[in-house]
């Protein structure tokens, strides 16, 4: 495949939050996102995974221009966010959408479903009145909801139906770029399967390019082609999902995959897990942020930060990338 110009590109992207010092806590700096490079080709489907607080939502908001970066550049269709005129921003807003983490918070309890799905159309001057309503109705049908939903209010819908409404609203403008932030995480598996089918169908129909943020390593395989694993604000491993799931090279990716419970009761082994929890301070200073929990860590890991090094279409940030760790060996023994 000839690699065309990516629809979205980020270079050296970073975002710092300063935490005001408390009574006993000194003022501190949190690197929520740090040194992120990524490229999303047209029609690309990229999953962003990692533990809670690793910066997934912040990254999504930065890319959509909903939060300001502290460092780095973002290009959408080769135009830098930083160089956009107000008119360019308007166009970008029409062509991009965010599906928020919490569908209940994303919907206005006082407004009918129809009005909420039609809202982006009127806000962006795409359509109004009967035409907007008709487009909204079609959008609802596309996500498998009947026209009778138009007059309902959010509280009259199930969780799965609300999530579909949020997706319908995000897609009603036929955007080019979408960030799905935990779009299926709160749903029951039966509904999750429906929504995943729906996202795939819409992706085919519209040729969408998207980022799919999730902490669930199981579901992302079915909505994305590539994956970026984040740890404390940085990408530690990235590449095609199947290749990475087959042979993760970063100890963190290995540990994450090993921690996912299998559907096979006979596979129950002492789950090999990583010690402890992520502590933001581990990302400060030199060295690998994962070293405090890493079973493979050596002296070099504390003194020198591993760079994200490319190998073919994959990249890993680890001094011992590709060496077989204990969790990984156990997994391989299980599979064979």
């Amino acid at each position, binding site marked *: 495949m000839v690699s065309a110009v990516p629809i979205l590109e980020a270079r050296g992207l970073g975002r710092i939050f300063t935490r005001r010092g408390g009574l006993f806590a000194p003022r501190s700096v949190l690197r929520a996102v740090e040194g992120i490079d990524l490229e999303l080709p047209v029609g690309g489907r990229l999953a962003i995974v990692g*533990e*809670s607080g690793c910066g997934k939502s912040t990254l999504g908001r930065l890319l959509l221009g909903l939060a300001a970066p502290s460092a780095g550049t973002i290009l959408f269709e080769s135009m830098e966010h930083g160089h956009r005129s107000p008119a360019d921003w308007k166009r970008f807003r029409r062509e991009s959408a965010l599906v928020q983490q919490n569908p209940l918070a994303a919907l206005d309890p006082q407004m009918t479903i129809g009005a909420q799905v039609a809202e982006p159309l009127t806000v962006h001057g795409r359509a109004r009145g009967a035409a907007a309503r008709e487009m909204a109705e079609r959008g609802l049908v596309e996500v498998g909801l009947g026209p009778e939903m138009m007059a309902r209010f959010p509280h009259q819908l*199930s*969780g*799965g*139906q609300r999530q579909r409404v949020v997706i319908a609203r995000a897609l009603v403008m036929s955007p080019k770029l979408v960030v799905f932030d935990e779009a299926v995480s709160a749903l*029951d*598996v*039966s*509904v*999750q*399967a*429906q929504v*995943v*089918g729906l996202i*795939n169908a819409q992706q085919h129909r519209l040729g969408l390019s998207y980022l799919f943020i999730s*902490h*669930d*390593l*199981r*579901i992302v*395989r*079915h909505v994305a082609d590539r994956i970026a694993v984040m740890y404390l604000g940085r990408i530690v491993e990235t590449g095609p*999902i*199947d290749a990475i*799931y*087959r042979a993760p090279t970063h100890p963190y990716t290995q*540990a*994450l*995959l*090993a*921690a*996912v*419970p*299998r*559907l*096979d*009761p*006979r*596979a*129950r082994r*002492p*789950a090999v*897990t*990583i010690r402890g*929890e992520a502590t933001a301070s581990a990302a400060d200073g030199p060295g690998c942020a994962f070293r405090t929990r890493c079973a493979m860590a050596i002296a070099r890991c504390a003194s020198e930060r591993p760079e994200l090094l490319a190998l073919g279409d994959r990249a890993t940030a680890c001094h011992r990338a590709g060496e077989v760790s204990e969790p990984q060996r156990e997994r391989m023994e299980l599979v064979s």
Partner: protein
Amino acid sequence: MLLQVSDLAIRSRSGGVRILDGVDLQLGAGEVLGLVGESGCGKSMTCYAIADLLPAGLVRAGGSVRFDGVDMGSLDEPARRRLRGGRIAMIFQDPTSHLNPVHRVGTYLEGALKRHRGLSGTDARMEAIRLLERVGISDAKRRMNAYPHEFSGGMNQRLMIAHALACEPDLLIADEPTTALDVTTQAQILDLIETVRAETGMAILIVSHDLGVIARLADRAAVMHCGRIVETAPVEALFDRPAHPYTSALIGCMPTVDPDDCDPPRPIRGSVPSLADLPGGCHFHPRCDRRMPACGLARPPLAALADGQSSACFNPVPTW
């Protein structure tokens, strides 16, 4: 049988909506029973009914809960209170909201040790520190003075487990103990629960909507749908040859991390019906691929198939 739940029914006080409808569960000493089903099917209310902690809006509408041979309904309130938090301990999905924010970790554990084991002073303190170490909380001595809000969700769940262990229970009820946690922390907590059960031999009722958690921990599993148990089986049989079409459909919805498992998760058609407006007969029939005319008319009883497997279905999936 350590725990025998028979024909348990719960309904809401106001509307009369049936929340649980004829639930049967058995749990032997030292056994781990997994209870699985989709949101709202009644898993938590089953736990609360067993632990005698039903919310105010709900009432028992029939059936019995026998613990160690004694009908809990026949006990007076002080006796029930001694059981609850004593021989029967419970941990929850959201540990932080079940912990009193003004109590230090040490006070919380020492209180339980005093109430249920008569320990006080240095003895209680030493034992509390030992419990914290046992559940994997490092630097336990210093952590005795911490408050729950200074702990992460995973640490608070460890604290809840320590609290449960303080009473040396015979039965631990764990309602979605890892649902709010990262997968890495979840694996740690599941390991801990497994270790603790191996050490103490206590029985566990583990509730989860995640079949993976059930596969990981349970000896036997019960599948719940709209307030009824639709299948129960040894956990290997449940995954190898699910008999109830709902069980089979639930397994089909589950994504995995196995790159060779190429099938996308198969949705179940339609949506979970509301408890206030349940379809007649088998509550699953409108969504079921195997339904027959009888399915909409009569309630299929939970019938034994083989090897400890039972299913409530007129047309179970062939299991040969």
